[in-house]
């Protein structure tokens, strides 16, 4: 079990390989692995990334403003998007008109077992690649005379540089990213948990990546049983085990984390975004 409080993590400059100024608060990240994941709150003004895809999965919850993903659609404030591995999306364009947007982004190794490279390692690698070429409009252009592909998507260039092999994208399971309107889902009371309701958004892929919202009424208690789950507080105050929670307190519950230590008790009305990470227990290597 891990708990991160918002005041423990500063906002810092995010990626080098994408255009625009993005600042991120890195709530979770871990060493590169099949089942690695990161959770960040990212703020961006002007931003551009070309139409691209990843070998990992993403959920993006739009906290403030709208994010434009070209023909993929617009993720408006309050919407949740699931971006499956291997699936093209974008281009993402955000004009420099002073309209900032803030997104809560979960990225994790997906059902194919392609894994997820830690964000710190991605950043370090992008710095290294900058000595061998330039990133422009989200594409890495390698300097003439150096071995390796000339022009390729920035994120792919980083992956291939770290893993020292060609990236083979998983075949997409869905025809498009899945954008959801959480306000159009109804709350369903949880059995045996008075004052606690859930909005189940969906469960995707054969490894069952999932997302839902949890609502806890003042004084009510919610005791989840961990199975590689992430909880991020969207509103409200209360306690989680021995610690207090507030907006953006984030909790990771591993297999078997449960009981009083993992119980949320609401002081005032609370809403939490919950992600179930895919079950990759039988997949060992990237």
């Amino acid at each position, binding site marked *: 079990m891990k708990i991160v409080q918002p005041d423990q993590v500063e906002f810092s400059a995010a990626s080098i390989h994408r255009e625009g100024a993005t600042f991120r608060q890195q709530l979770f990240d871990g060493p590169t692995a099949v089942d690695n994941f990161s959770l960040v709150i990212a703020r961006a003004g002007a931003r551009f990334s070309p139409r691209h895809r990843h070998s990992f999965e993403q959920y993006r919850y739009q906290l403030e403003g709208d994010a434009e993903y070209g023909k993929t659609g617009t993720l408006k404030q309050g919407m949740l998007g699931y971006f499956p591995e291997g699936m093209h999306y974008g281009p993402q364009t955000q004009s420099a008109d002073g309209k900032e947007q803030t997104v809560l982004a979960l990225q994790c190794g997906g*059902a194919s077992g392609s894994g997820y490279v830690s964000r710190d390692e991605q950043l370090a690698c992008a710095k290294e690649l900058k000595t061998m070429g330039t990133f422009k409009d989200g594409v890495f252009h390698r300097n003439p005379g150096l071995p390796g592909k000339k022009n390729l998507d920035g994120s792919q260039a980083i992956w291939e540089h770290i893993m020292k092999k060609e990236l083979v994208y998983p075949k997409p*399971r869905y025809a498009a990213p899945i954008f959801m309107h959480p306000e159009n*889902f*109804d709350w369903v009371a949880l059995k045996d948990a008075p004052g606690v309701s859930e909005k189940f*958004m969906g469960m995707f892929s*054969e490894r*069952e990546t999932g997302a839902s919202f949890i609502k806890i009424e003042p004084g009510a208690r919610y005791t989840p049983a961990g199975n590689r789950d992430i909880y991020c507080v969207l509103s409200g105050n209360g306690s989680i085990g021995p610690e207090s929670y507030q907006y953006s307190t984030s909790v990771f519950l591993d297999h078997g984390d449960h009981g009083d230590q993992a119980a949320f008790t609401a002081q005032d009305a609370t809403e939490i975004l919950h992600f179930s990470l895919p079950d990759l227990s039988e997949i060992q290597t990237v």
Partner: protein
Amino acid sequence: MLGYYPEGMHYGPQLPAEEGMDCAVLVLQCGGASGCGYVNRGEVLAGAKELQTMGEFKDGVFYRNEGLPGKKNVEGSQAIWEHIMKRDLEYPKPRYAAPILTHPDSFDWIAVKGETGVFKKQVGSFTERQTGAGFLKLEPKAQYTVTGNRDIFFVVSGTGSVETVDGSNPYSHATSIFLDRGEALSITATEATEILNFRLPDLTGLSGLMGIQAHA
């Protein structure tokens, strides 16, 4: 491919298949999470026949005859619903931005724990009432027992037998089984078998917009 078309969500237009390119589709339609319910197909057909005496259906739209009360031009399916229910149809707000089209061949089979020769591919589960779809694969001679929760099983390929409280029956392509809550089904494959499994949404406690209670 397998498509999930959520309630309240626009789709189409659906264009006719090219000449000589017949297509066949397995379609499940059911009352959704909003509780708007589902009018049975027999009643829909009877409603359409009745409406034909009051106007005409053309290109999927119902055009009411001049002088008759009611909306002039309404989408055909909506016209039938409103004729049967005797009120305006209020579409639920869509929960997703688009229908969800899936490529089942891109999903991997996952061995079912504790079973030999039985595999699953969960394709997805949607809405707060958890409408789901997935595939089940049995190798020859494999046996699998499942307890229903308003599930539909459709045999895509293979042969074998199924056993329920009503006895044992052979299965083959297109054999379809509805398993209500708590009902048990035992499947024994003679040949390699693939089954499409739909999980109907859990509408317990929902009286909804139709003003009728869900099946308990």
